[in-house]
């Protein structure tokens, strides 16, 4: 097997992986970087992020505000020291992106403009029209070309990590074009493979978002943290799940039910006003807005469409000119995919799975419990999203913690050497044999698409916006059954060249492992918090028992072992999570209490 000797290997070349690669290159140009991606880097799913990247910018804003919005938005399940670092380094990183050429939208006087976003007290979301992720990704990709020490392995699919002497020492990849295996030897590995939204049926995610890195780390004993927290984005296209950015509401769009009524005012987000007001109504956090849809549907106040019940995203009052300037891609999606002109008709929308809040347990410096292994981005749980991520925090996360991951991995790589190359190569050989085994196994009859569809349907019924123990138990059983059936998978395609059937089979294995952590973590969390809401006697947040991180450990053929970890609280004691007028009141009480205490 061909061996490439790197100092740092990075699996995934989206926003997080590219930012990490640049950080390694800048911290020491002598370090050899292997940047591995199963697609061309510009295809990575960062490309689809629309709305923006949060960073405290305006004089009336403060780091404390961003901190409080994030920690409260996460229903106090955030690592507060990590959030403090995050908000403090957000601005310099979006400025760095600006210096690298990101086409941020501007104010008339030439400064970067900011827009309102859900759950954010002050406008602080930097944006490049409604293609922010696209522009950040291409800016990072093109900038990365400057650095000769970054050796890209485009369209190379990672099948396993190599762990030797108790630390990670490389990765085994398939060159998709030829089916050839390569060992990427590395002193440190950064996982930046994105989320796992494809375990669900209706989702906003690209086909490549299959939890690869999460599953790889998990199988090597690194826990996946807080996996029960899946974000439903409230405004998605029926059937396909394609995303209509929260910026639609940031710019002033309304959500209305079948009576033309702005129903969010009935769910603790009001009162309704004509102009968007931060943390009110349509600018509430995603979990609450998606939950309100669910209630409206139960009350029979949604609109029946061919692909399920919908509500209307109404932007007619914003006018065509503003929509074309601020939301050009949304305009295009509505026109081309739905035949709707959003300046003249409301867009039918419904919630769909959007973001995996949980992920590979990462400490504040992005390191994991496995020496040499780091993670960044949606695959990672570094601790800033808690039980519900605020829109526009994740793009900023990519650059803030991408840089940290690069710097830390570089430091670590310089402190160690490869100990036993022979043993590493031997491991790689057995990884290769296992991966080939999936194609060559005889007697299998299970179809990839069938298993994938059964998984996604079951996850949707067990781990939806509201959850019941009976449904979750059924999904636990189903995923267990599918993992067994997976062993009898039939891979039709026997080619070496672009064998996507084979890769889909391997991805399905990743998806099933990750799905199992989601549903088991959910079943055991007997409370309601953020995006995890139950209707079976656990409707309230229970800080006494569950102000805890869930940790799911790989357990072979059996379901994951679930343990719990402490939550780091620095300056924000868990309080009432409220929005709209109730939120204002809660803030005042909190202030009064703070004044009384201090």
């Amino acid at each position: 097997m061909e061996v490439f000797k790197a100092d740092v290997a990075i699996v995934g070349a989206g926003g997080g992986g590219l930012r990490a690669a640049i950080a390694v290159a800048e911290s020491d140009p002598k370090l050899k970087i292997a940047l591995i991606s199963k697609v061309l880097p510009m295809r990575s799913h960062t490309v689809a992020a629309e709305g923006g990247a949060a960073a405290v910018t305006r004089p009336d804003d403060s780091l404390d505000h961003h901190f409080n919005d994030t920690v409260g938005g996460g229903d106090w399940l955030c690592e507060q020291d990590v959030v403090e670092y995050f908000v403090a380094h957000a601005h310099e990183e979006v400025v760095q992106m600006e210096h690298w050429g990101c086409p941020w939208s501007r104010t008339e006087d030439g400064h970067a403009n900011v827009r309102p976003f859900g759950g954010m007290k002050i406008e602080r979301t930097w944006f490049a029209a409604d293609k922010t992720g696209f522009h950040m990704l291409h800016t990072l990709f093109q900038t990365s070309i400057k650095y000769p020490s970054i050796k890209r392995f485009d369209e190379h699919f990672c099948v396993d990590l190599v762990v030797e002497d108790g630390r990670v020492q490389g990765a085994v990849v398939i060159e998709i074009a030829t089916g050839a295996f390569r060992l990427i030897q590395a002193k440190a590995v950064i996982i930046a493979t994105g989320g796992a939204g494809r375990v669900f049926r209706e989702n906003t995610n690209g086909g490549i978002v299959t939890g690869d890195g999460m599953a790889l780390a998990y199988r090597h004993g690194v826990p996946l943290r807080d996996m029960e927290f899946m974000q439903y984005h409230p405004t998605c296209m029926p059937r396909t799940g394609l995303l209509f950015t929260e910026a639609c509401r940031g710019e002033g769009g309304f959500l209305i039910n079948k009576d033309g009524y702005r129903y969010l005012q009935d769910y603790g987000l009001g009162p309704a006003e004509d102009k968007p007001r931060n943390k009110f109504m349509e600018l509430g956090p995603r979990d609450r807005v998606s939950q309100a849809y669910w209630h409206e549907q139960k009350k029979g106040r949604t609109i029946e469409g061919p692909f399920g019940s919908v509500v209307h995203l109404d932007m007619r009052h914003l006018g065509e000119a503003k929509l074309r300037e601020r939301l050009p891609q949304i305009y295009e999606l509505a026109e081309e995919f739905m035949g709707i002109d959003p300046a003249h008709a409301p867009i039918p929308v419904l919630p769909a799975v959007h973001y995996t809040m949980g992920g590979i347990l990462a400490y504040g410096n992005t390191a994991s419990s496995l020496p040499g292994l780091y993670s960044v981005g949606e695959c990672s749980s570094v601790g800033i999203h808690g039980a519900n991520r605020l829109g526009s925090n994740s793009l900023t996360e990519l650059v803030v913690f991408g840089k940290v991951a690069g710097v830390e991995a570089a430091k670590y790589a310089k402190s160690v050497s490869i100990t036993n190359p022979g043993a590493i190569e031997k491991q790689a050989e057995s990884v290769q044999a296992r991966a080939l085994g999936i194609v060559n196994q005889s007697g299998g009859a299970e179809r990839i698409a069938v298993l994938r569809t059964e998984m996604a349907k079951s996850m949707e019924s067990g781990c939806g916006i509201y959850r019941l123990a009976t449904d979750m138990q059924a999904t636990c059983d189903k995923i267990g059954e599918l993992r067994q059936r997976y062993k009898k998978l039939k891979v039709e395609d026997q080619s070496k060249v672009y064998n996507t059937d084979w890769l889909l089979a391997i991805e399905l294995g990743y998806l099933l492992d990750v799905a199992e952590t989601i549903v088991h973590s959910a079943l055991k969390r007997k409370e309601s918090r953020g995006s995890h809401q139950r209707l079976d006697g656990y409707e309230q947040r229970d800080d006494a028992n569950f102000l805890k991180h869930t940790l799911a450990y790989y357990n072979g053929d059996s379901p994951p072992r679930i343990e719990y970890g402490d939550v780091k609280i620095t300056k924000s004691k868990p309080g009432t999570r409220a929005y709209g007028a109730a939120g204002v009141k809660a803030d005042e009480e909190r202030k009064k209490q703070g004044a009384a205490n201090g």
Partner: protein
Amino acid sequence: MADTEKIIEIQVLRYRPEQDKEPVLQSYKVPFTDDMSVLQGLQYIKDYLDETVSFRWSCRMAICGSCGMMIDGKPKLSCKTFLREYYPQGLRVEALAHMPIERDLIVSVEDFVTKLESIKPYIIPKEPRTLEQGEYLQTPQQRDMYEQFSSCINCMLCYAACPQYGLNPKFTGPGVLALLHRYNADSRDGGQAERLGLGYADEGFWGCTAVGYCSEVCPKGVDPANAINQNKMNSAINYFTRFVTPGGADK
């Protein structure tokens, strides 16, 4: 919107280098509804009719640039081309023209990526600036000068459309030239002189014969033909000013 299911015939140009001497058409009958894209048709084939059909895709929303292919002979993104437009006569999908087919609907992107990497597609600062100094000031009007050209999703439809690239693969081609112009036109950038070196050669801007099909097929309105035109102008001015300016143009 959904309606009763109909059946459409999709002919896929297959090429499996290990077994096919040359590409062959294979026909599939796919049930579809009016909301379904050509990509969804192909996914149906892969999931339920023939797992061995290979194609690239990811975002499904015309932003990742993966799923370009020839659809009835025209370069298009399959995710935003709809089956209903080809009913009842059916449609033919093939790998993008002008690029070597690796397998089925997958072409080699090597030439495109190499060209993209070669044009210094990054800011070469006019005036260096520290992070503490904050962002460069750039008015909305200055941003408008390059924004359109920064919207290229690298889907390569314009390469499949460009007759010049078809004849002479050394031609830098529309997408990469638009990107080159994107950086040259950015008020923060001072690298124009370095990059124009490429634009002088026949393989650069002057290779373009102004057919304009590239702009027609661009799914994102980037208008590479316009970028190329502006640069022909710039490089001509640059060429002539070198004789009248002491010390030459730009340096």
